[in-house]
C-alpha cells in the first residue's frame, strides 16, 4: 500500500476515534471540536476540487461557505418565527429538515459559483485571484447592508435543525452526521479525480491549449469543476451554521476564504485527505496556541510562512513523500 493511502486511513479512523473516545470520557467539547474539524475539512475538500484538481486559485470561497450558511438561516428562521418563508407568488413555509436544507444550500452554492465562475474564468492567473476575492467581498458587504437577515449582527437559529432518525442536539450524533457527509464528499472527490471529467480537468489545468486542440473546452470543464466545488463548500457552510446555530457576515468575510485555503495548503494541495489533515492541524493549533497566547494568529502566521517557504507539499507531502507529482 502507498504511504499516502496508509496515512489517509489513519486520518479517517483518527477523526472517528478521537470524538468516540472523548464521548466515552465525557468530554463533549472535544466532540464539538472534532465536528468543527469535519465541517472545515468538508469546505476544504470543496475548495480542493477547484484549487488542486482545477488549478483555480479561488480566494473567494467564503462566498459559497456563507451562501450555505445563509441558506440555512433563510429556511430555518421563518419556522422559529412561526411565519411562512414567502406568501407570493405562492405560499411556502420554511423548513428545519437538514436534508432539505443541504439540498437547497448546494443548489444555492452551485448557482453562486456558476455566476462568479462564469465571470472570473474569463481571466486567469492573478486576475482570477483578485476577482474571486472581490466578488466574495461583494457578498460580504451585501449581507452587512441587507437588514432582513440581521445585517451586521447576523441571525441566531435557537434549535439545531433535525435529521430523520437522529437527535442532532446530541454532540456525538451531530458529529456522526458531519463525518458521514465528509466521507461522502471525499468519495465524490476521489471518483471525480479518476473519472474522464477529472482527467479532462487535469488537462485543462496543465495545458489549456492542448486540451482545446483535443476538443475539450478548458472554460467549460473548469467552470463545471468550480460549480461542484462551490456546491460542496456551501454544504459545509450549512453544516457550520448548524454547528454554531448562528450565521453572520463573518462567514462571508475574505479571511474565511483565506483560512479555508490555508487549511487546504497545510494539509497538502491536491491530496485527497489534505483538507482533513489541514483542518485537524488548524483546529489543534488554534486551541494549543490559543491556550497560551491571545495573539495565537501571529504564531499561526509564522508557522504558515515557514511551511510555504520551506516545507512545500503540506503535511501529507511531508509525511508521505512527493510520490504524486502534480505538475
Amino acid at each position: 500500500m502507498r504511504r499516502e493511502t496508509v496515512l489517509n486511513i489513519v486520518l479517517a479512523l483518527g477523526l472517528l476515534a478521537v470524538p468516540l473516545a472523548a464521548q466515552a470520557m465525557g468530554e463533549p467539547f472535544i466532540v464539538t471540536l472534532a465536528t468543527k474539524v469535519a465541517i472545515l475539512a468538508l469546505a476544504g475538500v470543496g475548495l480542493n476540487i477547484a484549487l488542486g484538481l482545477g488549478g483555480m486559485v479561488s480566494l473567494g470561497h467564503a462566498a459559497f461557505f456563507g451562501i450555505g450558511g445563509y441558506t440555512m438561516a433563510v429556511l430555518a428562521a421563518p419556522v422559529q418565527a412561526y411565519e411562512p418563508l414567502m406568501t407570493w407568488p405562492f405560499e411556502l413555509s420554511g423548513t428545519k429538515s437538514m436534508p432539505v436544507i443541504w439540498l437547497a444550500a448546494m443548489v444555492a452554492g452551485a448557482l453562486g459559483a456558476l455566476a462568479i465562475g462564469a465571470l472570473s474564468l474569463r481571466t486567469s492567473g492573478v486576475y482570477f485571484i483578485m476577482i474571486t476575492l472581490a466578488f466574495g467581498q461583494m457578498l460580504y458587504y451585501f449581507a452587512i447592508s441587507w437588514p432582513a437577515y440581521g445585517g451586521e449582527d447576523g441571525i441566531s437559529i435557537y434549535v439545531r435543525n433535525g435529521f430523520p432518525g437522529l437527535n442532532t442536539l446530541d454532540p456525538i450524533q451531530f458529529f456522526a452526521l458531519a463525518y458521514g457527509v465528509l466521507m461522502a464528499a471525499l468519495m465524490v472527490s476521489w471518483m471525480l479525480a479518476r473519472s474522464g471529467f477529472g482527467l479532462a480537468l487535469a488537462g485543462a489545468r496543465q495545458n489549456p491549449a492542448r486540451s482545446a486542440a483535443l476538443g475539450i473546452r478548458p472554460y467549460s470543464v473548469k467552470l463545471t469543476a468550480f460549480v461542484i466545488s462551490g456546491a460542496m463548500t456551501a454544504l459545509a457552510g450549512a453544516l457550520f451554521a448548524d454547528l454554531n446555530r448562528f450565521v453572520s457576515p463573518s462567514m462571508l468575510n475574505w479571511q474565511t476564504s483565506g483560512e479555508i485555503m490555508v487549511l487546504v495548503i497545510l494539509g497538502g494541495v491536491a491530496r485527497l485527505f489534505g483538507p482533513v489533515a489541514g483542518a485537524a492541524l488548524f483546529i489543534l493549533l488554534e486551541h494549543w496556541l490559543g491556550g497560551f497566547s491571545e495573539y495565537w494568529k501571529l504564531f499561526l502566521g509564522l508557522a504558515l510562512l515557514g511551511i510555504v517557504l520551506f516545507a512545500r507539499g503540506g503535511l501529507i507531502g511531508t509525511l508521505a513523500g512527493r510520490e504524486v507529482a502534480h505538475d
Partner: protein
Amino acid sequence: MSLMLLIEQALNGLQYGVMLFLMAAGLTLVFGVMGLINLAHGSLYMIGAFACAAVAAATGNFWLGLAASLAAAAAAGALMELTVIRRLYARDHLDQVLATFALILVFSEGTRWVFGSFPLYLDIPRALAGPVRLPGGIDYPLYRLVLIGVGLSVAAGLFWLIGRTRLGIRIRAGEADREMIGALGVDISRLYTIVFALGAALAGLAGALVGALQSVQVGMGEPVLILAFVVIVIGGIGSIKGALVGAILVGMTDTLGRFLLPIAFSTFMERSQAMSVGAALASMLIYILMALVLVVRPGGLFGRA
C-alpha cells in the same frame, strides 16, 4: 442646494479615488515589475497609519507623524522584500497568496500586541482643519481638498518618475525583460527592493492621510486592499495610468452610488425601504462595475492583454 450637495459628494468621491490610487499604484507596480501578488500591501497601509498616529501623539506634530509613516512603511516594505518576498518571485501565485496571507496575520497580530485592540485617533493638523469656501459658495473641508491635491501630485510625480528618470527606465525595462536588464548590468535585486519600498511608502502615506479621517485600527488595510484589487482589475494590471483611471472611477462610483441610489429608489418606493435597498445595492455597485469591465474587456481598460 441639491446640486451643491452633489458637487460635495463628487469631491468626496475624488478624494476617495486618489487615496485608492496611492494603494493601487504600489500593487500594480509590484505586479508589473516582479509578477508578484502581494496581499500584505494592506498591512503596509496599516503600518503607515499606526506610525503616524503614534508619532503624532508622542510629539504633537502631525507632519513628523507623516514623515514617520513614510519611513516606517518603506522600511517595513524593504524588510519584507529582503526576508520573505524575494523568495517568492520564482514561485507560483498560490505560494505568493499564502505567504503574504501569513504576513497579514503576523503584521495584524503583531500590531494588536503592541498597540492593543482599541483604535487610535489621529487629529487633522490644525492648519488644515475647518472648511474652505469654494467658488459657487460650497463649504468643503480643507483637509479633504489637500488630500485630493496630494494624491494628484503624487500621481504626477509617479508618471514623471516612471516616464522621465533613469530609475523609471529601469523599472519599465524590468517589466519588459528581467533577464536582459540583468545582463546589461542593472542590479535587479536592488531594483526590486527599491520598487517594493516605493510601493510600500505610497501605501503608508495613504494610510496616514486617511487615518486622520477615520480611526486607526488593526485590520483597516484589508478592505482598502480589496478595493485596490478592484481598481487594478478595472484599470489593467501593471498600468499606472489604468490604476489612476480605475481608482477615480471606483471612488466616484462608490461615493455617488451611496448618495444617489437611495434617492433614486425613493421616487418609487417607500422611504425606509428605499434607504435599505439603495444602501445594499450601492455596496455592490463597484463590483458590478468590475463585472461589466470584465465582460467588455477582460484585460482591464488599459491592460496589455
